[in-house]
């Protein structure tokens, strides 16, 4: 076929450019992922006792996750288009992470010296990042699938951003079941779990989002 014929064909009855529903699709995928990770966390691990929700611990995790979600989803949205600047969104993600790390460090310093290790490692440090990543996998597949229908051209970066969003959503679900209470624990191990999910996304991105 001649390229000119193709061009005529494409233009004929083309109408105005269709909407490009980046936010709607990503939000739907993240919501679905949150639902899945919450259900998984509640079924596999079991919910925290109701009394725990009157303490600050679950809310710290939740606030951290919500702030991170704002940055990560902005990043994912920008990477869903061929050319959009990602600098602000990346700065937001890194900024929230550093803020949390700082908060963790401050609380750790305020902790009596003998208890610092137990505050940092808690009871579950070795399982937390892995569990978090596992709980994020449904969200990750939903978000990658949503992104694939958009127009990502920087696939590794886009995959990483998708992984971050999924990790954050998984962290929200996990916080319903996670017994840890220290800020330092959340700053280190939650962040690691979210980053792990990001790396899984980065690895999957170029494989599943080709178009």
């Amino acid at each position, binding site marked *: *076929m001649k390229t000119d014929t193709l*061009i005529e064909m494409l233009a004929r009855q*083309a109408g105005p450019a269709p909407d490009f529903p980046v936010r709607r699709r990503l939000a739907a995928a993240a919501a679905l992922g949150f639902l899945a990770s919450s259900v998984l966390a509640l079924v596999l691990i079991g919910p925290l006792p109701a009394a725990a929700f009157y303490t600050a611990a679950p809310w710290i995790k939740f606030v951290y996750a919500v702030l991170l979600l704002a940055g990560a989803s902005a990043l994912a949205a920008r990477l*869903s288009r061929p050319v959009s600047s*990602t600098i602000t969104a990346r700065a937001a993600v890194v900024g929230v992470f550093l803020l949390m790390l700082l908060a963790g460090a401050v609380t750790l310093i305020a902790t009596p010296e003998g208890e610092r290790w137990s505050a940092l490692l808690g009871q579950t440090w070795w399982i937390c990042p892995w569990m978090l990543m596992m709980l994020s996998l449904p969200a990750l597949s939903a978000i990658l699938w949503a992104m694939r229908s958009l127009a990502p*051209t920087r696939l590794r970066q886009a995959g990483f951003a998708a992984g971050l969003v999924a990790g954050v959503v998984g962290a929200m679900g996990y916080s319903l079941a996670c017994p840890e209470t220290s800020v330092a624990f959340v700053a280190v191990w939650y962040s690691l779990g979210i980053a792990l999910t990001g790396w899984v996304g980065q690895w999957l991105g*170029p494989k599943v989002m080709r178009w």
Partner: protein
Amino acid sequence: MRVQRLKGGKRKSYVRPQAGPLAIEWYQEDVHVLHNSHWTRQRLHNGDQKPISKKIPPVLDGCNQTIISDELKNDAQHSDFESGLKPLWLRAQSGDELSYQKALRLIAGRLRSYFRRHLMNLPDDVEDLVQETLLALHLHRGSYDPTQPVSAWVLGISRHKLMDLYRRRGRREALHEPIDGLEEHLAAEDPGETLANVDLHSLLQELPKAQRIAIEMTKLEGLSVAQASTRTGVSESAIKVQVHRGLKRLAALVRKEPT
């Protein structure tokens, strides 16, 4: 011009001699760029994902195309290509068929010379890739953001398509990132051959019937969506959906078709 990424993530670069309006010379950490006919010296961070410089886009998927778009934004102001394309494109986006046709022709010419340069060894693939990219641009035209130069948007997608072809062909070039943009091809358009190996007409036969008929009526016979709707008894929105799905399917077929 290509930058090679060596294993281990360290950025080392090499010179690939090539004629062209933009010449780049790489040293270990500094890069000299001939830009607008003067050399500028820019420093790269060793081991960094991206150079500090706003002028040199870094490697493959790790690349951040904002850098390119910033660059193109500057260039774009002086560029005939962008200034000729943008008004056409904006009119096309709001539904002007004729402008859309003109814009696509303009783009096709650029794409041809861009791909030709990067597919020196695969000249047969050039026109196929031009057509594949045009289809991709059409299917994703909603993703264009009017605050950005059209040429940057086109380049983002074309580069993606080029990389995709390299990966499919399993070529070593997949490791390289072409860092020159459409703008740098001052050698203007390449009217050259415009016949692709892949024949969309025959691929059309492989589509599901509803999609094929919707495309034939609106895209080949030129019926309006309303006319196609009354002729087939299917709602207008269904016709639009079938056309879109059909073209998407077609794009996937073109991509898979061995040539």
